[in-house]
């Protein structure tokens, strides 16, 4: 008995570990203050704002067209989607009809962007888990997408390509054929990733049953995108509130079953396949010619009022909320940032986990700090 008492008196000391702001796995300047006992996490406190640029405040002094380049810099891995989300909100507010060809170009670009973003997720996630090669493989495919974007928009990351009422340029000659050639190439690569990663026992051990939450929690925390769908909850805005021309395409919304990190990884892989399907259909349906910019007043003024619309971004619901007082600049612009909202659940997920799971869980949330901090 005395021995047992003595053993109970052994005191272990908790320590505070500062993960970040400079850390290889925080994907940017993100700081996570974790209290650990041994390697077990007792508590975690995310600290954000290191990349806060005040986009919302800046936008109050900018005309609507001028805001578009700023949206590029929110989620810089999915700038096309940001561009679209903003233009879409303004178009809805003004009831602008977007020409067919522009809509199809937009959908092709958005889905390609989604693929690029998901690719990068897979690469960085595997890098977080210690596998190095997928990270370099994904950049080869992403490079092709980025090159295609470069050809159509002139930039590799910050495209500034969508315009209110359409897109900036029509596709250069031969561009659509390049996209057509990309689709089967990407299909092969998805298969390759599947055999490289999905079957790996160590990967499965690291991700199965890690970071589990259910649909109810996810909804209460306002999560969206793959983070929500991994729990098996069917919620894809492309389906639930079809915007643009998504109601014309036939695609599936892959759902997870367990709500763990593996599901989140696997949904990214499956969604790339679905995006390819959409790209393929859009390439078939796109009209050969036609204007790419609708009838839009030169100086855009939104009637006074409040406008919100969200789209299915690469990381979840990406929405823009505009308060207008009838001038050519928004009175207030609020961005519904999916990573920002999704990140909130992190402390709950981390409590009681091993520190090695921290990386697995944080990586699977798929954050981009440019968006979290805006």
């Amino acid at each position: 008995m005395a021995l047992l008492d003595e053993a109970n008196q052994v005191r272990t000391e908790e320590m505070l570990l500062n993960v970040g702001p400079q850390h290889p796995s925080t994907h940017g300047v993100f700081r996570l203050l974790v209290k650990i006992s041994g390697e077990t996490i007792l508590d975690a406190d995310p600290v954000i704002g290191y990349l806060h640029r005040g986009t919302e405040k800046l936008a109050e002094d900018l005309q609507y067209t001028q805001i578009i380049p700023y949206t590029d810099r929110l989620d810089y891995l999915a700038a096309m989607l940001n561009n679209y989300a903003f233009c879409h909100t303004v178009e809805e507010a003004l009831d602008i009809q977007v020409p067919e060809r522009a809509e199809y170009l937009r959908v092709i670009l958005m889905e390609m962007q989604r693929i690029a973003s998901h690719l990068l997720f897979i690469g960085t996630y595997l890098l977080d888990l210690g596998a190095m090669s997928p990270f370099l493989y994904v950049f080869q495919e992403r490079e092709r997408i980025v090159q295609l974007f470069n050809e159509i928009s002139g930039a590799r990351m910050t495209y500034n390509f969508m315009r209110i009422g359409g897109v900036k340029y029509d596709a250069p000659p031969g561009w659509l054929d390049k996209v057509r050639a990309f689709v089967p190439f990407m299909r092969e690569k998805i298969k390759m990733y599947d055999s490289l990663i999905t079957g790996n026992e160590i990967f499965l051990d690291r991700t199965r049953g890690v970071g589990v939450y259910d649909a109810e929690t996810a909804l209460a925390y306002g999560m969206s995108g793959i983070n929500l769908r991994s729990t098996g909850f069917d919620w894809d805005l492309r389906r639930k509130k079809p915007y643009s021309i998504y109601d014309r395409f036939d695609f599936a919304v892959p759902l997870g079953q367990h709500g763990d990190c593996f599901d989140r990884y696997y949904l990214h892989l499956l969604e790339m396949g679905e995006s390819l399907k959409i790209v393929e259909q859009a390439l078939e349906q796109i009209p050969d010619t036609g204007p790419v910019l609708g009838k839009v007043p030169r100086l855009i003024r939104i009637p006074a009022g409040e406008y919100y619309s969200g789209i299915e971004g690469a990381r979840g619901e990406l929405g823009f909320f505009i308060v207008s007082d009838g001038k050519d600049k928004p009175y207030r612009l609020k961005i519904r940032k999916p990573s920002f909202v999704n990140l909130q659940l992190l402390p709950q997920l981390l409590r009681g986990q091993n520190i090695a799971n921290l990386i697995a869980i944080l990586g699977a949330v798929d954050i981009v700090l440019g968006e979290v901090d805006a």
Partner: protein
Amino acid sequence: MSEEQPQQSAAPAKAARGQEGGGKAAAGAAPAAGRAAANKQPPAPDPRVLAAKEQAERLHQAVADRFGPEAVLESGAAHHKPMLRIARERWLDAVNYLRTHPDWRLNYVECMAGTDYEDRIEVVLFVQSTELGHFVCLKTQTPRDEAWLPSLVSVYPGVNWEEREIYDLLGVDFRGHPDLRRIMLDDDFVGHPLRKDYSVWAETERPLVDGQRP
């Protein structure tokens, strides 16, 4: 509708700016005094706005029946979405009621935003019912000085950071929030930048450079 019209016509154009969104966006659903141009026929009201207003009316009824008429300040439409403005004293209860009420079940927060107007700070909550498909804009407001609102974290844990952000950038004190700290800016930052009267130079104590503020 019943409340909106007199209010809008009575309010001076400047004070009303940016609040009755749907009404003005449809331009004619509720023609404000002195606004409808004499030579222009008001266009037919947008059916989407009408539907939104209808739904807002039902929402109004539901909340007013439960919490009394003074709980709801206004109902109308924010663009094509039903809008309900709730008194801040009843904000938490009303939102929770709408979340759990079987007719509404607004269980999913899409967006929460705060806006600073000249006379008040308004907080907007876009909520969605994933089962019934409602998409509603709930609003509340607080005076600018001594700005406080009840926190919704106990109802929707997901607005935790959004409320922190509103506190940080607009200076609204969310009472009952478990962890109300600055989130985007430094802890020792002075002022709330998204307030319209915020000035970078006025509120920070920057050292003088060559006798001038940098």
